[in-house]
């Protein structure tokens, strides 16, 4: 491994080793490291960024009881003060455009700017969802082409494009399964969910009205096939399996699992959130999957985080395709793409649809970005995405397994994520200390304490974005943190030292959350 900086040169940074006793400024800022108050603590009452006319005329008699008696408690800021407030806050944020974001539970990779250029083209960006079909042919072409790519890459029969995110896609898949069971008059109520599945899987199954039963993992972090087949029966509607699973491992028995579930009359849902590890290498259709959502915002690199926007199209087997939601695109014999809605669903042989997942076509901005990503990479490029993502994760795994315990390190190569536990940390040092230390090192922390099957889990997903130099810097930092823990360095227990705020009391924040700003709270009353 290369040293991150072979010459050892670094710019003079002053004394940052003891931040707390260093020079204090009158403003609280330190050059471009800005302190920022809450927006309610800024400005003055009565200040407003826009001119508002006084209302003219009488209030309609019926509305009089609703007249506001006290002014709205809005912060009083001018437009430049408001802009500065949010820009200053944004400088305290960490983003994929600032550095590696090894957040294993959510793939955070580079969003190529070409995608953004395509999505911002006025013909796509300014299109209204109710625009007449003949004025939106280009957008339908994008949806149709992307749908074809997704069906081809997964080896499935068809795809429902409308679900808005991963969990929404899971719900879509389970509603298809429910509709298929209803169509054959089969009242199966149980969905089996292995321990190695994503946490949203049991939640979705419960939300869709199924009862959830847990299937244990075996010693190398994969589904216990014997336990799963033993539980199958006439009451089991299906299984939800995350593959690659949340331990970062490929479920090698996937085909055997699918065959057993099908033989018992059930369906196979695959959580495809981790499809980025196998895209171009494995077709879920060949593994017997009946439904799988694809997180466009992960595998096909559309920006996300902080709750949106996502997009979770669901690919379906021939068994479930007849129940797919409306609307969807279909190319007519004359080559024109048609949007199939309720009025003509029967004419297109789709009268068994379970209904709708969304009002309109789906997440158009994500479709444009995902198709730009796919077309600019090509089939060979997508295969390399998976290969590089897996290679990078294995480089992390093998570069750290001598200082951090890798519970499944002996179970063969990992996929896109490297999983460690806190077993090798000395008494008194935890996964949280490593995560907080990583903030001081200038990285976003990895996923911590998930998956639950591993004690004190640290889940690292480098993605294909990072170069070897970037990985080496992350590895050097993590090795340094592991060494500090091993030497019981007390400064690691109080990390972060260099972040805008020191270690926060997460327990108090969860037990007594303050969700609404009030002057009394601000005054400490």
């Amino acid at each position, binding site marked *: 491994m290369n040293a991150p900086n072979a010459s050892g040169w670094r710019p003079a940074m002053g004394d940052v080793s003891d931040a707390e006793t260093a020079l204090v400024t009158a403003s609280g800022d330190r050059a471009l490291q800005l302190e920022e108050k809450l927006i309610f603590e800024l400005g003055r009452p009565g200040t407003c960024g826009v001119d508002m006319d006084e209302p003219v005329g009488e209030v309609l008699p019926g509305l009089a009881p609703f007249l506001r008696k006290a002014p709205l408690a809005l912060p009083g800021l001018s437009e430049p003060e408001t802009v500065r407030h949010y820009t200053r806050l944004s400088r305290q944020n960490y983003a994929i455009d600032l550095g590696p974001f090894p957040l294993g539970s959510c793939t955070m990779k580079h969003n190529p700017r070409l995608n953004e250029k395509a999505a911002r083209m006025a013909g796509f960006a300014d299109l209204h969802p109710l625009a007449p079909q003949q004025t939106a042919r280009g957008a339908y072409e994008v949806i149709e082409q992307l749908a074809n790519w997704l069906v081809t890459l997964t080896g499935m029969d068809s795809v429902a494009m409308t679900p808005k995110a991963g969990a929404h896609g899971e719900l879509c898949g389970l509603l298809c399964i429910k509709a298929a069971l209803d169509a054959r008059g089969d009242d199966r109520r149980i969905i089996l969910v292995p321990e190695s599945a994503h946490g949203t899987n049991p939640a979705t199954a419960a939300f869709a009205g199924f009862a959830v039963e847990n299937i244990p993992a075996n010693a190398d972090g994969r589904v216990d096939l014997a336990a799963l087949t033993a539980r199958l029966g006439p009451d089991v509607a299906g299984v939800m399996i995350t593959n690659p699973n949340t331990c970062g491992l490929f479920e090698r028995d996937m085909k055997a699992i699918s065959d057993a579930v099908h033989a018992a009359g059930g369906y196979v849902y695959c959580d495809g959130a981790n499809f980025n590890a196998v895209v171009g290498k494995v077709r879920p259709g060949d593994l017997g999957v009946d439904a799988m959502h694809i997180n466009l915002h992960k595998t096909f690199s559309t920006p996300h985080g902080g709750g949106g926007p996502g997009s979770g199209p669901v690919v379906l087997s021939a068994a479930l395709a007849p129940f797919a939601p409306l609307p969807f695109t279909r190319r007519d014999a004359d080559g024109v793409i048609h949007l199939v809605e309720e009025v003509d669903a029967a004419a297109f042989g789709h009268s068994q649809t379970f209904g709708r997942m969304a009002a309109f076509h789906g997440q158009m901005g994500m479709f444009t970005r995902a198709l730009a990503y796919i077309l600019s990479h090509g089939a060979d490029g997508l295969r390399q995405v998976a290969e590089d993502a897996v290679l990078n994760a294995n480089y992390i795994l093998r570069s750290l397994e001598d200082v951090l315990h890798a519970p499944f390190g002996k179970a063969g190569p990992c996929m896109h994520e490297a999983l460690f536990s806190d077993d090798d940390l000395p008494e008194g040092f935890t996964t949280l200390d490593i995560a907080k230390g990583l903030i001081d090192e200038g990285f976003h922390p990895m996923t911590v304490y*998930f998956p639950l099957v591993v004690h004190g889990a640290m889940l690292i997903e480098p993605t294909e974005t990072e170069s070897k130099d970037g990985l080496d810097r992350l590895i050097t930092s993590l090795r340094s943190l592991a060494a500090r823990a091993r030497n019981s360095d007390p400064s690691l227990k109080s990390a972060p030292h260099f972040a805008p705020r020191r270690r926060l009391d*997460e*327990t108090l924040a*969860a*037990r007594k959350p303050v969700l609404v700003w009030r002057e009394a709270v601000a005054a400490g009353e």
Partner: protein
Amino acid sequence: MPRYFTEEHEWIDVDGDTGTVGISDYAQGQLGDITYVDLPAEGAKFAKGDSACVVDSVKAASDVYAPVSGAITEVNSALADAPELVNTDAEEAGWLFRVTLADASELDDLMDEAAYAEFVKGL
């Protein structure tokens, strides 16, 4: 008053046909700081092994399974303001709920204190 433990780390104290249920000290240590306990409704009926309540910690939300079948007669209302009782005194003041035992023979499958201590050692 005899105390029994489950492999899912619940304990139950049995007094006549009433059982008092909580999670073990080992379990609270594994969960870390408890932030909230979602207690069952009084009168709710559970079969043995059903999820009866949820304990939230800074690390995870974990189901607490009914160690026996029966109806909830009382819940530990002190936990609403002080969920940390489950951390500081898991096996006494941090109890979760009381249940009327529907079938006392279900206790036969559970472990006594010594057997549970052995069980935890093996984890």
